[in-house]
Every structure is written in structure tokens, then in C-alpha cells.
């Protein structure tokens, strides 16, 4: 049994203490935990990665003006419906027709 083995088997051996300490630093929610630093780092990494991705959807203003066609087709059923209105508009404004 050498020096090292003795340490490993002991109740408060140095390697075990170090391992415990590191676990505490990485996972515990104690003050100044490394986990917090890792979280911040990961967030920063996602931001940078997202902005650098080539597959992002590109939205750009069209170079041609937007044209809205107001040339609405004449609806046949509406023409039938306007029978009375067209008659009245002529009778009531005969001076302009």
C-alpha cells in the first residue's frame, strides 16, 4: 500500500476532496459558480452563431415600386342588381345625362 492508495482510501483523502470541490464549483448553485459563467458563455455563443448562419431568411425592400391593380372586373350579378339605381340616377339628374 503506497502513499497514494492510502489517500484514496482514507475518509478525507486529497483526491476525493478535490473532486468534491470541483463538482461543487461546476454544479452547485453557490456564489460564483462556474455554471453561471458557462451559461453566459453559451448564450454569447448562440448569438454569434445565429448571426453568422448563412441559412438565415433575408428580407430586403423590393427595388421596383409596389403596384396595386385597382382595375376591378365588372361583376355581372352586380350589373343586374343596379337596374333600379341606374334608372333613378338618370331620372333624378336628367340635366347631366
Amino acid at each position, binding site marked *: 500500500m503506497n502513499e497514494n492508495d492510502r489517500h484514496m482510501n482514507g475518509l478525507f483523502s486529497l483526491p476525493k476532496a478535490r473532486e468534491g470541490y470541483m463538482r461543487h464549483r461546476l454544479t452547485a448553485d453557490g456564489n460564483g459558480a462556474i455554471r453561471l459563467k458557462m451559461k453566459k458563455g453559451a448564450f454569447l455563443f448562440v448569438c454569434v452563431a445565429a448571426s453568422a448562419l448563412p441559412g438565415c431568411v433575408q428580407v430586403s425592400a423590393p427595388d421596383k415600386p409596389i403596384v396595386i391593380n385597382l382595375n376591378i372586373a365588372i361583376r355581372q350579378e352586380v*350589373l343586374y342588381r343596379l337596374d333600379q339605381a341606374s334608372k333613378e340616377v338618370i331620372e333624378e339628374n336628367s340635366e347631366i345625362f
Partner: protein
Amino acid sequence: MALNEKMKDRIEMAVAALLIGAAVAGSGAMAQRDPAYQQARADGLIGEKTDGYLGFVTPPSPAVKALVDDLNIKRKAKYTEEALANGATVEEMAFRTGCRLIKERTAPGEMYQAPDKSWKTRDASPPVVDVRCP
């Protein structure tokens, strides 16, 4: 006595209302075309287009152009009013009225526009109108 006075007032008001109504109706029926407009129609300088507005058969004089522009603006105002009231577009209202104007309000000798955009002189036979005209 007081009742009598009231009734007298009412009768007077009713008579006045009737007289005003008759005057308004009379003026409506009396509305005539401007003589210059009537003349331009009769001379074939202007004609009814298929879209419900007046058009120039020959290049117009400034006076005729002003006359027609004014009438077309007034027509459009009326078409807009009626279109709104009937859930139609202004173009639909104008077109429908145009069909009627060509069929019912062009006298023989006056000009109208055929669906192919050519000007035709109205005669005793039925005018050539757009197939969409009801």
C-alpha cells in the same frame, strides 16, 4: 278656441309643405340639359361611351371640352353615391348606367360608342351594346 287655433296652424303648415313639395318635384322634372350640351350631342361632336361617361367624337373645342369635363365630373359624383348605396364599384355603377344611356337616352342622329370603341350614329335600330349589359 285654443284648439281651433292649433288646428288652423296645422292646416297652414300642411298646405305650405305640400306647396314646397310640389315646387321641388316640379323643378326636378323641369331639369333640362344645357342648350350647349344638347347642341353638341345633336351635332355629333360628343357621344355616350360604354363606360357611362361622355366622350369626344372629334377633337373638341375648349368650350366643348370644358362642358364635357364638367358633366363627367358630376356624373362620377352621382355614380359614386349610388355605387356606395348599392354595394357596387363606381365602375360597375357607371357601366350599368352607360348601358341604359346608350339604349334609352340616345336619340337618332346622336353618337354612341360600340363595344369595339368605334363611334356609331344612333338610328332607329337597336344600338350595339356590350354583351355584359343586362
